[in-house]
């Protein structure tokens, strides 16, 4: 089913494991070189920045070619353009298959771009040909190609898209059925999210679906977040209020709304606990992020303290928490460490971190225009300064 060459994919995963071991200085350079030679990867996989560039440029080319179609269809009907767009999306799909089979592209940016533009063209074509498509029909329209692309190309984002479309289909097809389905909707969505999470966990180590490992990871994260969101008090109250037209007043809640405070507060704690217990990065990190969701949900309905006091105290608690964990884990305990993982692939993260720091903490006032120091001895700054003494 997968479009890429299977031997190359298998060899790629061997190479990745070996390079990781080499980075951790477990195996020698000669061994690493020999293994990579014995298991060659015959695929075109450029560096990530080149991939970004190829993605953007491919998009430019495809949009410009589509521009020719638009020029040809000036004055034509919407339906005619829809048919042309449909043919265009088929051509894009052909190009995608060609570039993978003949040119051996694998996540090169070009195949990513063609994949995305193909699905966008397909959905646009359907909406142009049949005007007035419902939300449910559009969800089905997204789900079918996304699911196919997931199977065919093992693309993680397509997997996430298919999952989201599936949930939308379920939501739209159940809501018209009456009040009881509406009431159990959060529980139904939670059950589905949990089931999908369980499936992803179960199959993430299965050798038969090894080409879909990346997809499993992203779907795991998404399923955990949806499992939480479906039971979150804020989401349940506000979504019910706006979609089912309940017209709740401030302070009012959906019937038995208090039940949703339990998962709102409990789930992140469970995620973190299980994450630590099972040494599961995904559970742990999702849990930590969702702690923020708890705080926002509570603060939205109960004004515990003015924002600045809450921020200061929260910030201080977090700093202290980090301090005590660092102290507790020096030296490493129970298989946990606070030391940096020895992975050259993460070296770029330090650069990203420093840029984020500069972006968020640049609180120094930019020199006011009339006071700033001028390069080239500008007269404005010099003259103004004398007056101020």
């Amino acid at each position, binding site marked *: 089913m997968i479009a890429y060459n299977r031997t190359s994919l298998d060899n790629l995963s061997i190479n990745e494991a070996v390079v990781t071991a080499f980075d951790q200085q477990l195996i020698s350079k000669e061994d690493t070189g020999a293994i990579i030679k014995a298991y060659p990867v015959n695929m075109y996989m450029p560096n990530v*920045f080149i991939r970004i560039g190829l993605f953007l440029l491919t998009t430019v080319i495809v949009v410009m070619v589509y521009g020719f179609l638009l020029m040809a269809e000036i004055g034509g009907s919407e339906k005619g353009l829809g048919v042309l767009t449909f043919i265009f999306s088929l051509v894009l799909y052909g190009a995608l298959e060609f570039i993978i089979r003949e040119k051996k592209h694998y996540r090169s940016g070009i195949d990513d771009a063609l994949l995305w533009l193909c699905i966008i063209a397909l959905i646009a074509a359907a909406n142009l040909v049949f005007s007035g498509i419902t939300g449910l029909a559009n969800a089905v329209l997204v789900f079918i190609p996304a699911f196919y692309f997931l199977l065919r190309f093992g693309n993680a984002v397509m997997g996430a898209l298919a999952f989201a479309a599936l949930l939308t289909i379920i939501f739209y097809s159940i809501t018209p059925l009456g009040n009881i389905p509406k009431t159990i909707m959060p529980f139904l969505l939670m059950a589905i999210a949990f089931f999908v999470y369980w499936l992803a966990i179960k199959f993430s180590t299965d050798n038969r679906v090894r080409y879909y490992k990346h997809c499993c990871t992203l779907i795991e994260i998404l399923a955990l977040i949806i499992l939480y969101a479906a039971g979150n008090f804020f989401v349940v109250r506000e979504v019910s209020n706006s979609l089912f037209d309940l017209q709740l007043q401030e302070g009012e809640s959906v019937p038995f709304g208090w039940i949703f405070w339990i998962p709102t507060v409990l789930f992140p704690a469970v995620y973190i606990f299980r994450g630590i217990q099972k040494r599961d990065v995904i559970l742990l990190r999702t849990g930590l992020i969702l702690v923020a969701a708890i705080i926002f949900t509570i603060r939205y309905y109960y004004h515990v303290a003015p924002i600045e006091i809450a921020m200061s105290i929260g910030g201080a608690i977090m700093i202290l928490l980090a301090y005590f964990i*660092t102290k507790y884990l020096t030296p490493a305990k129970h298989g946990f460490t*606070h030391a940096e993982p020895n992975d050259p692939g993460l070296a770029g993260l330090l650069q990203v971190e420093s840029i984020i720091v500069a972006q968020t903490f640049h609180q120094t006032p930019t020199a006011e225009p009339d006071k700033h120091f001028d390069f080239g001895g500008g007269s404005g700054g010099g003259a103004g300064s004398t007056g101020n003494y």
Partner: protein
Amino acid sequence: MNIPLFERLYKEGLLSAPSLQNVKQKAGSKLFSVHWELKTILYLGILLLTGGLGILIYKNIDTIGHQVILAAIGLLCAGCFFYCERKKLPFATTKVPAPNSFFDYILLLGCLTLVTFITYLQVQYIAFGRAYGLATFIPMVILFFCAYYFDHLGVLSMAITNLAAWAGVAITPLNIVNANNFADAKIIFAGLVLGVALAAIAWASQRRNIKAHFEFTYVNFGMNILFISSLAGMFQFDNFYPLWLLPLAAAVFYFYKRAIATGFFYYILMLALYGYIGISYVIVRFLIVSMRDLGIIYLILLYFIGSATAIIVFLSRMNKKMKLHDRI
């Protein structure tokens, strides 16, 4: 660690026995690192704390009094620097690792409170006068000193944004286009000078081997402001817009050389995109001015298809060329 895989490789004679032993041992004693989790918690904590304290002071300035606030900020700042000074590893001109991630962020907190302290003194008492932007200049010098003394990339980035602010240019990634008034020729030239200066500092640090790992940070800021200023000049000065291709070409050429020397693909992507925007602007504008019928649109579409294909070929070639210098 995939043990069966390594055992298979060992059986095939591709892996030596000690290597297999190493892998097995490592898999048995694998530690779970919470390094980035702790860093994120610390980062958010400091962001919240400094933000919260800022609002707190702003709201209660009348009841607390300036001296008390200054004393509190000063104490916090002194505490942070005291901790960092005690924990830091000895200074060296090469890369010095931080003792732990907590240290990194306490240093950051110290620098932030120090900058706040100075800004506060300036706003309240105009302690540094109004001449020569001293109020921005002094924090900048302190930040640069701390960045080198404690070896901290985040503080260095803050120092560079401060240097840019002193020159009148906003350089932080999300503000670089919006916050600068590029209609002002002074900003454009300040941006050019700043970009060249940062590139020069980067070159010198790498050449003299003084904190050579700071090179990328300098180049990143310098490259972006240099390219954006050149493009802004091109868009702004109507009469001789093609002339701006000269500084653009010079920058592309210089960073191309640096990319080849350092093996950073990031430089290649940036120079390709900025250069492409510049050339496309000049060509499209020339086409629009010289022709006046509908055929122009077809020509522009054709130009973009052809030129984007050319850049794709260029990027692929560069990928091949630079891959040769890759790690293994």
